[in-house]
């Protein structure tokens, strides 16, 4: 049976969502002091970069940007085997920072659990907030995002794909039905 793909967020929609999230982050944190963005590879890191640019445009100051790879923190080594490792690049001290953890799609919450463990291994942040472009539900852990671009009800059989352009900016979100 052929896949059915529906565009659930186009470029304009993505722009509006991310700009709103940028404002919300600034508002919630009262500016950029001690604020850092850390994206989860791969996807979340690109969105974190996009958000950092938007924050810089609004506030005139770009928060430090990092990327983490959570492969070493996964809980599915047995079922998925040894996945290739990506690089964790957090070129600043996380102690005392307000970290906005960024991912593209929030689903079971296991990735976020792994990412929080990874962050805490890097130091002691003041707090960790979570920003996602899409929340598709089906949480398996008690994790709740602070900033959401769009809530998309899905079934477990469906898949959500975020496409990025050549500059690694998100350009389209698609819902794929099997």
């Amino acid at each position: 049976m052929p896949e059915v793909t529906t565009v659930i967020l186009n470029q304009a929609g993505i722009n509006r969502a991310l700009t709103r999230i940028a404002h919300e982050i600034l508002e919630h944190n009262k500016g950029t002091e001690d604020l850092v963005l850390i994206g989860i590879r791969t996807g979340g890191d690109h969105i974190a970069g996009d958000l950092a640019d938007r924050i810089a445009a609004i506030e005139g100051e770009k928060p430090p940007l990092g990327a983490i790879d959570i492969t070493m923190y996964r809980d599915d080594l047995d079922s998925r085997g040894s996945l290739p490792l990506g690089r964790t690049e957090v070129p600043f001290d996380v102690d005392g920072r307000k970290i906005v953890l960024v991912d593209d799609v929030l689903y079971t919450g296991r990735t976020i659990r792994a990412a929080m463990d990874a962050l805490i291994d890097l130091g002691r942040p003041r707090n960790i907030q979570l920003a996602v472009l899409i929340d598709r539900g089906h949480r398996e852990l008690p994790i709740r995002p602070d900033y959401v671009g769009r809530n998309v009800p899905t079934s477990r059989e469906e898949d959500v794909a975020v496409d990025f352009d050549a500059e690694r900016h998100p350009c389209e979100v698609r819902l794929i039905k099997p």
Partner: protein
Amino acid sequence: MSFGHKHILGIEHLSREDIFQILDTAAGFKEINTRAIKKVPTLRGRTIINLFFEASTRTRTSFEIAGKRLSADTVNISASSSSVVKGETLEDTARNIEAMHPDIIVMRHGASGAPHYLAERLDCAIVNAGDGAHEHPSQALLDLFTIREKKGSLEGLKVAIVGDIAHSRVARSNLYALTRVGAEVRLAGPGTMVPPGIEKLGAEVHHDINDAIRDADVVMMLRIQLERQGKTLLPSLREFSRFYGLNQDNLKLARPDALVMHPGPMNRGVEIASSVADGPQNVILDQVENGVAVRMALLYLVAGGEATEES
């Protein structure tokens, strides 16, 4: 994507892609070793037994640290404290250990082929930490990692390996690994220490160290077993040092940016002059540092690897 090998018995069985997968994985792990909290939960709950039938400080410690930084439980068993001295067979020793359900056995043994023997008989993964004069895969991989890190790539590099080739598992593993990634390998050693047919593995063989070193990008010195001197293989260490030792003079024949490597432990003043061992071109401690990351990579890949083919 999983690693295609259940065991790491030697480089001989690894493809160029396998080697780069290991090096790339090691690159990911290297960063952990410089953190304040040098530990990730990747292998939490796994048990790794370091089964060493031969004395080893460096390799055993390196594997132990690698396992611990991945949160595995690592247990060291050395021959002197094991039941081997009571005349137990290797198979029985290993089966007893396996009954305690380790996930990985890292083993060093004086007999070539001993890890292959166990791999055929046990269910758990075996990582060869050196077998006789056969292979020492983790050493070769950390050497490649270090060279790649310093030189950017491996292809086309000229690598001289000098010393007792015949009895060296480091030489064999490096020869397999370097030729597989496209480096050019030159071997040099006394006539009694170059084994027959080694050139068929793709190396140039020299008996004059100068010919091997000339224009080399890397000079890898092997440890000479001191007990070999004064017997039939080697008249004296003095003579060895004179004809096959690396010193500031002959090192000038190599490229000015050539790396000086040694698997350790070094015999200063025998195969390598102190001035060279401590000189600006030496990357000997980088090798040791990278050893931990490379062994983390091996343990990780083997632990996650549902074998898609026999290694």
